[in-house]
């Protein structure tokens, strides 16, 4: 545990910690471009210079390259160090195109910040600037090589961290070029992180190109609804349009990065076809009327077919808060069934896995990254939950062995094939993890877990809140819609954000749908009430490991300003609510429905 002094503050850090991290641990900022907590050091940018006044090393040193040693006396404010950093910034800016006004990174650019912070304002060098020709890198990422400062973060991330092979660094000396062999879409499913990792505007999000500036963003901490991993994100919106999503650091979950599937998934929220108004019998209505009509229909169905002719159907993509209200609603309308799953298979699978995870043996993504023996059992992480594949790669990079149980998949790392689980030397591993999906045999896993006290499992659930709703299924004895419809008693359903297969949908005469997506259920429903997407409300999801994570409201619901008709764009009329902004979170709609039912009951008695 070396002890050193940084700017008159005594710091004690773990062996091998760099000076930069040691300084950060006591909130002393040192500018840096090439160093990144997830990528480590490169010593490429030379901007983290500090001066060592005393101790084993002296003079100007790169703080990201130098491990902290006993007795070091470090000054970050020494005039020599400050001058060094200022000059380095000036060098870095020599070939920079100074196109910040037309750069999407402007306002959130590390280079901008450090240039200003370093005090470099006027260009003194009068020579010409080196230029590069850009490459087309697919529909998601914009390439602008002129802005590059050769920090090598992108290539280190892309090839080393994410295991991509189609993007790299070419040339040498003043010709260094970061790009592909030939133009074309980046192949890595994690390529979007280049946008986050680039300290300047070489890689920018093409989907949000020229849409807004950092200070105009509506942002809030959120959770990705793409799969059951629950990666932390920060969605960015402006004028009611979801512009882009950036990764939010959470060391226990996704670390610093997210996958492209979660990142470039804005179109569903911005979709012009989203239900924006309540609809009753194909006629546009308002939420109040639709709720009233729904109540009348429930009563009418009850009288016609007797009690229990209505089912309440939730889904595994609804937020936990709304899911918790479903049993209440089912109770009030004396529902014939409470469902969170549509098929019997799904229902049984999730229930059994919830039992399994409940033993406290679930592995977080961090556990996977730190594991020394990983078994991929019957699942395809790269497709089902891409960030899990990324975590496997990190474990592999730090020396873990990866086993795949006879299954045709690809992983961004080397792996060994094994025929069965029993062939894997689990007992020899320190921190073994089994990654599976719901098709796995729980009995077998159960036995393994009993046999290996250190073993953890990471079951990949199909949707963001599969786990949370499965807990409720167990608690309230919910059945699947398939089972509920089997005896033909159910004549109507209230579907909350549920994707019901056409085969089942055909059997139900009355459908009321609460959803924010234009699903087949919504199209078939007699009553449609719009709900809000996850970025338009507060809520929480419980991920595969049983970790409840809160997501906050990013923007108000409503038709994006961009999507309004040309005459109303930009809007010139002042209203208190946005066009199409009457959508409410599902939990609020359910609470209202429950209150209306309660009021009605009280009135009757």
């Amino acid at each position, binding site marked *: 545990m070396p002890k050193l002094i940084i700017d008159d503050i005594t710091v004690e850090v773990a062996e091998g910690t760099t000076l930069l991290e040691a300084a950060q641990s006591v909130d002393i900022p040192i500018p840096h471009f090439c160093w990144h907590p997830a990528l480590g050091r490169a010593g490429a940018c030379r901007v983290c210079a500090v001066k060592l006044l005393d101790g084993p090393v002296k003079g100007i040193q790169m703080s990201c390259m130098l491990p902290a040693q006993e007795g070091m006396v470090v000054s970050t404010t020494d005039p020599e160090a400050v001058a060094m950093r200022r000059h380095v910034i000036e060098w870095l800016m020599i070939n920079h195109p100074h196109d910040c006004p037309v750069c999407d990174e402007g306002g959130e650019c590390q280079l901008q910040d450090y240039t200003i912070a370093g005090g470099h304002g006027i260009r003194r060098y009068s020579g010409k600037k080196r230029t590069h020709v850009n490459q087309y890198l697919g529909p998601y990422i914009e390439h602008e090589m002129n802005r590059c400062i050769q920090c090598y973060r992108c290539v280190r991330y892309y090839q080393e961290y994410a295991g991509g*092979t*189609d*993007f*790299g*660094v*070419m*040339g*040498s000396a003043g*010709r260094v*070029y970061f790009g*592909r*062999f*030939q133009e074309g879409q980046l192949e890595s499913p994690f390529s979007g992180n280049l946008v986050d990792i680039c300290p300047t505007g070489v890689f920018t999000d093409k989907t949000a190109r020229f849409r807004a500036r950092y200070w105009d963003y509506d942002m809030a901490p959120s959770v990705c609804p793409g799969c059951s991993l629950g990666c932390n994100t920060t969605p960015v919106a402006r004028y009611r349009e979801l512009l882009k999503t950036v990764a939010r650091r959470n060391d226990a979950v996704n670390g610093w990065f997210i996958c492209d599937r979660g990142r470039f998934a804005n179109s569903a929220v911005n979709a012009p076809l989203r239900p924006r108004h309540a609809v009753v019998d194909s006629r546009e209505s308002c939420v109040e009327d639709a709720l009233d009509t729904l109540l009348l229909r429930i009563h009418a169905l009850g009288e016609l077919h007797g009690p229990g002719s209505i089912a309440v159907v939730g889904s595994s993509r609804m937020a936990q808060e709304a899911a918790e209200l479903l049993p209440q609603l089912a109770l009030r309308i004396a529902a014939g069934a409470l469902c969170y799953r549509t098929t019997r298979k799904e229902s049984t699978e999730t229930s059994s896995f919830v039992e399994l995870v409940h033993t406290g043996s679930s592995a977080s993504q961090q556990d996977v990254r730190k594991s020394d023996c990983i078994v991929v059992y019957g699942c395809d992480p790269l497709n089902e939950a891409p960030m899990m594949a990324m975590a496997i790669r990190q474990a592999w990079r730090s020396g873990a062995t990866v086993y795949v149980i006879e299954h045709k998949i690809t992983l961004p790392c080397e792996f060994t094939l094994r025929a069965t689980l029993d062939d894997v030397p689990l007992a020899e591993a320190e921190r073994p993890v089994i990654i599976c999906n719901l098709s796995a045999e729980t009995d077998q896993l159960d036995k393994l877990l009993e046999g290996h006290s250190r073993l953890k499992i990471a079951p990949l659930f199909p949707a963001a809140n599969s786990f949370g709703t499965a807990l409720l299924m167990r608690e309230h004895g919910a059945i699947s819609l398939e089972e509920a419809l089997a005896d033909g008693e159910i004549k109507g359903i209230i579907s909350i954000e549920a994707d019901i297969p056409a085969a089942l949908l055909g059997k139900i005469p009355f459908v009321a749908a609460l959803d924010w997506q234009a699903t087949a259920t919504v199209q078939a429903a007699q009553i449609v009430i719009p709900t809000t997407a996850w970025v338009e409300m507060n809520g929480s999801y419980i991920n595969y490991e049983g970790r409840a994570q809160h997501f906050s409201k990013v923007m108000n619901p409503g038709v994006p300003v961009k999507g309004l008709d040309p005459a109303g764009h930009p809007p010139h009329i002042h209203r208190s609510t946005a066009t199409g902004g009457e959508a409410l979170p599902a939990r609020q709609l359910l609470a209202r429905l429950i209150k209306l039912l309660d009021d009605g009951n009280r009135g009757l008695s």
Partner: protein
Amino acid sequence: MIPETMRQELQDRISSAITNREAAVDVMKALQTHYGWLTDEAVVEAAGLLGLSPLQVEELATFYEMIYRRPVGRYVIHVCDSISCWSMGGESLLRQIAGLLKVTVGATTPDGLFTLLPCCCLGNCGQAPAMMIGNSIYGGVTSLEKATDILHQHRRNT
């Protein structure tokens, strides 16, 4: 396409290396000798042989200055412009050769025989100024006559 025998030789070379990447320079050199310069097609072939992606081969190809990713003449003249050679007149040597060949630095003579390139260091500082033609290195090229002789020698050889 490369001949099968050559492919076999290269594969042997690769399999004798600890990692494939280690053999990349040899493979690229061989392909360069075969094609005259390392064509795009050659990069893809090298990648196929080495089990790397074309980009990864390209990274190496563009890094080394004696792997030519653009067409060159039969003989590539590397004239050292590094500090030792520069102080011994390497700069004027380069200029004089350019005058002699009537080409600009970096260009190929119209007959396709010579390509003139500057070069960082040939490791021949003891005999500065140094130049390299093809695979043969020449030290102490202090006079234009000497350079002319060397060039004529190569021209004769063809």
